[in-house]
């Protein structure tokens, strides 16, 4: 049976490419299941037959570790998502947002209650405007970061806080977005090996491959950053 990797939907595209290479290089088979990190987390708790979980945040892998469903020392940050402010034709300029724009301008954002990119966006806003409650009527909340992007991309909102990876993979022109470089705009995405995995060695091998130069090349190419070379400790 192939190694089963559950991946947060924002990372599915880069992962597919990495796995293509991986299969070519090693001959090991890998299958991908993707959904939002939240759904994957529920599934794992209910006993889903995944070997490796690539979440879009650190919270859920930590929770799995706490629940004894994942190996504590397998946790690695495989990529760091970067938030961008996307506004085609510069209809909205982030720093020029005013309280009087409330209700007039719609800004697409992932739900900060559970989407890591949404939380990052909220933090950025807080940093810029202190009290963001005044923008009550401004935000359109989506369930995940892909729809957040689609809402702006389809023209239904003039601007939004999106993942840089989506901007890069759809080749958005450079002048239409602004990369947010603050530390608060970073979304560390963690991976863990699940305890129910029947082939820990293969899982570990795969996770290690994610820090290989080829893989990192892909990851960066899709608009993510990486933290120091990742190592998977003994499990």
């Amino acid at each position, binding site marked *: 049976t192939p190694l089963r990797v559950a991946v947060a939907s924002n990372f599915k595209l880069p992962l597919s490419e990495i796995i293509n290479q991986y299969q070519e290089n090693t001959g090991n088979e890998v299958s991908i299941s993707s959904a939002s990190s*939240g759904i994957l987390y529920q599934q794992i708790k209910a006993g889903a037959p995944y070997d490796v979980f690539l979440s879009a945040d650190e919270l859920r892998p930590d929770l799995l570790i706490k629940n004894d469903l994942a190996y504590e020392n397998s946790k690695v940050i495989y990529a760091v998502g970067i938030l961008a402010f996307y506004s085609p034709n510069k209809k909205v300029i982030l720093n020029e947002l005013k309280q009087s724009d409330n209700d007039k301008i719609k800004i697409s954002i992932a739900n*900060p209650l*559970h989407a890591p990119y949404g939380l990052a966006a909220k933090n950025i806003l807080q940093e810029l405007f202190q009290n963001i409650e005044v923008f009550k009527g401004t935000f359109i*909340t989506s369930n995940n970061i892909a729809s957040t992007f*689609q*809402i702006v991309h*389809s023209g*239904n*909102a003039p601007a939004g806080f999106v993942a840089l990876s989506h901007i890069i993979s759809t080749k958005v022109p450079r002048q239409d977005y602004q990369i947010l470089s603050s530390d608060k705009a970073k979304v560390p995405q963690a991976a863990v090996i699940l305890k129910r995995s029947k082939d820990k060695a293969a899982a570990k091998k795969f996770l290690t491959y994610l820090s290989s130069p080829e893989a990192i090349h892909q990851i960066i190419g899709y608009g993510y950053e990486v933290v120091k070379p990742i190592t998977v400790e003994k499990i």
Partner: protein
Amino acid sequence: MNFAFGSTEITAFWLTLKLALSTTLILMLFCIPLAWWLAKSKSWFAMLVESIVALPIVLPPTVLGFYLLIAFSPQTLLGEHYQALTGQQLAFSFYGILFASLIYSLPFAIQPLQATFSQLDKRLIETAQSLGARPLDCFISVVLPICKNGIISAALLCFAHTVGEFGVILMIGGNIPGETQVLSIALFDAVESLQYEKAHNMAAGLLIFSMVILIIMNMLKRGQQRATD
């Protein structure tokens, strides 16, 4: 955006009720004549319309939502005209999710209605005509009461289906409290953000509420049945 809890659920409840009632009402008004025509007509054109009208069920709701999102954007004809007429945007507004609900629930109204109408004894229509009833009169005074059960069934499916609607609204709603944050979305949000207790409470509330509505509707149906027998 309201980051606080509390009255969220109550607002969501009223919004859901408003959405479900509006959808059911509008669909019934629109689908009863359409289904009647479909049930009577034997033309190929009617068959085509019948099939097209059933299509929204096969599209996964989120995918339907995705295409509606594209259709609603101000660059398209629909989005542009709506905005020109109302000065407002269709997506992320109550009317936007109402429109989506209408499309999404359309087949659930049409199908039972049409099955009911096609089973009607056509001789009773002749009878009404011979007594001087004009077509509309005949429809209201004979067809509707005799097909009452099928109509209630269709309304029930519509209503319940709209209450449970999720994927479409998720895409084009934008989760705005009081405007587009219906119960199903609030519930999913609770699950996603690991607030299980809140989720369980809302699910229980939703079930009890729906159970009450369903029992009332079924009582209507049964009352009717008893009287006819």
